[in-house]
């Protein structure tokens, strides 16, 4: 328990923007946490929990989650200091979803996102400096400052973008799965070996494009996982107010013969153990899946959201179940990872993010010639073709 108290102290010091973070007692037994629900759809099968990954991997996850948390804290600061403009959506509280799901797929599996996308980009391997510089609107950004916070693209990491229109990424996501299957089976003449992660928020549950995407994914047997990050609010509207059957979302995918699972979006380990077998199954069977990760957005919808639509009490309860704290607790209990070790990791991450911010500040403004670049691949009229962002050129040097 003293270890828990130390962790509590660490969390209090660590999270300058939340009033308090209480370390939860980890009561869920990892051996019995099979949330996966099976329904009467074709290819229905039972899943075994994935084994608990080794310590080094769990430490890497913790580091990733700390990195995302710190990155987002500094993003909020930079926004308030006017280095970042436009719409900016903070991922704090949901880190376990990006980290746990991306850990369950291969580095060359396509990933596509909605607009709360910084965390996934970092979990996927984008250098924080390019992510930050993108939001600063600088040439060193992943998209040369042309996309901003909502549009994190990284071709080297098979990251097909954050997308700003709610639900509009879901047809694109099934298209990525269509393409990998087409490439693997028709062009290479082998078996389909990829699975696409298509993330969406609960707001996308109410967009028609999602249902068109599910229908086509089922008809075409596409290996795609719709990862629903149910953080309970679409902008300022609670899921109960905006989504029919909010208490039982499996009905949404049942109608399309698509399997459904609920996973713990606040615990990377639980999530991974449930999610990895699902990802493997989709890859093997070339079928879609609808996975609901139950989580909570600790901050507002965007930087301008005063969160008047929910109570402080609710936020405190939710924040007391923090994915970073729960993984830290697990590592402490099971592997004797000391508070000092975690503090040191935290310091390293803070340094890394501080350096990313400094790098972004020093990255030059995107040159005005870029205005007419990347509109078309070829040159005609005022259009001057296309060019690689700095981020990918670095990849060429290596």
């Amino acid at each position: 328990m003293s270890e828990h108290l130390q962790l509590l102290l660490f969390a209090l010091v660590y999270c300058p923007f939340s009033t308090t973070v209480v370390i939860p007692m980890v009561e869920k037994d990892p051996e019995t946490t099979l949330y996966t629900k099976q329904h009467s759809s074709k290819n229905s099968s039972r899943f075994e929990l994935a084994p608990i990954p080794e310590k080094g991997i769990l430490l890497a996850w913790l580091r990733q989650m700390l990195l995302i948390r710190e990155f987002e804290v500094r993003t909020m600061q930079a926004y308030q200091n006017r280095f970042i403009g436009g719409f900016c959506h903070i991922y704090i509280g949901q880190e376990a979803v990006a980290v746990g799901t991306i850990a369950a797929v291969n580095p060359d599996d396509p990933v596509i996102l909605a607009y709360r996308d910084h965390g996934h980009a970092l979990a996927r391997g984008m250098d924080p400096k390019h992510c930050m510089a993108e939001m600063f609107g600088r040439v060193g950004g992943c998209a040369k400052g042309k996309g901003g916070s909502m549009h994190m693209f990284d071709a080297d990491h098979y990251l097909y973008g954050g997308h700003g229109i709610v639900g509009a990424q879901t047809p694109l996501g099934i298209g990525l799965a269509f393409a990998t299957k087409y490439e693997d089976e028709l062009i290479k003449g082998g078996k389909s070996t990829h699975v696409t992660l298509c993330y969406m928020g609960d707001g996308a549950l109410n967009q028609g494009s999602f249902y068109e995407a599910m229908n086509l994914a089922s008809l075409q047997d596409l290996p795609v996982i719709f990862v629903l990050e149910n953080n309970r609010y679409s902008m300022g509207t609670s899921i109960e107010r905006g989504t029919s059957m909010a208490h039982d979302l499996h009905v949404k995918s049942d109608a399309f013969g698509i399997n459904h699972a609920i996973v713990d979006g606040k615990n990377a380990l639980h999530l991974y153990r449930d999610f990895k077998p699902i990802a493997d199954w989709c890859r093997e069977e070339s079928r879609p899946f609808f996975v609901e990760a139950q989580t909570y957005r600790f901050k507002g919808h965007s930087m301008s959201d005063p969160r008047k639509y929910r109570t402080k009490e609710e936020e405190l309860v939710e924040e007391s179940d923090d994915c970073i704290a729960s993984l830290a607790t697990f590592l402490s209990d099971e592997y004797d990872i000391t508070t000092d070790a975690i503090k040191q990791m935290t310091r390293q991450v803070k340094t890394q993010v501080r350096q990313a911010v400094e790098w972004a500040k020093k990255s030059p403004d995107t040159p005005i010639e870029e205005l007419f670049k990347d509109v078309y691949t070829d040159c005609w009229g005022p259009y001057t073709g296309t060019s690689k962002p700095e981020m990918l050129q670095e990849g060429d040097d290596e």
Partner: protein
Amino acid sequence: MSVVASERIIEFREALREAMSEEMRNDERVFLIGEEVAQYNGAYKVSKGMLDEFGPRRIIDTPISESGFSGLSIGAAMRGLRPIVEFMSWSFSLVAADQILNNAAKMLYMSGGQFGCPIVFRGNNGAGGQLASTHSWSVESLYANVPGLKMAIPYDAYDAKGLLKTAIRDDNPVFFLESERLLSTSGHVPEEEYTIPFGQALIRRSGTDCTIISFGRPLHFCLEAAEELAKDGIECEIVDGRTIRPLDIDTMIASVRKTNACVVVDQSWSFASVGSEIASQIHAICFDELDNYVHRVHSDDVPTPYAYNLEQAYMPNTRKICEAVRAATYNS
């Protein structure tokens, strides 16, 4: 400029099919997707027989789900496949507007040059014949407003094949606007392979008195009007723009410098249209060489009516074009 030596005459729809089939044989990344394209052999028989040759993995039937299958195809294009998306009618593209305008046209820019979108959207555009308002869209002005896409409008079988092959090979999203009313028209199409570059207008009739600029099906009425006007000694030069993005304004200007009068015939509505854009560019570039302001013929500024007589009156037609040319040349 394109002297067609071939004796072979085929239908417009066959020319489209040949373009797609040849490109699919040349490049395994190309596939055709849309409503009724496979088993039904195409709602307008454009893809007739293609399922037999290429199989259901490359000729793909979809449900009536334009947003879904457009988005699917754009996602596939982001990975380097080269989809041809058939809209049964461009009128139905409106429910996929977010996908085709936001995702296809802007992807390259938003991703800082990382992910392009080599895709062709094609289908019938314009009033088909008493289909009433929702099914009679002429989308050229609506969509030409958006940077990042290209737009081609073939008038005859030769152009249909040559422009579509270019569209399929293009690394950018191409909006390819056909006309139901032209699909059964026939024309010379050589056996030999050819393509037609984008941004090269074609002089379809030479004349000295007035330039008429148009695209696609209205050219038929322009040609009719020119014959009628010739009887009165007014010789029109007809410029087929062929592509709207890129726009071959140079060929149009050269013609206007010769005739000193210009009429633009555009079947979309007049307000903020392709017609108004071309007129504006001509006014800006050769203001001093015009004997009159650029006259324009559009569909009337009302929803497309069903009744035959109203629909005929609504569209650009020979009578309206003749009136405009007479007015532009001070012959009215």
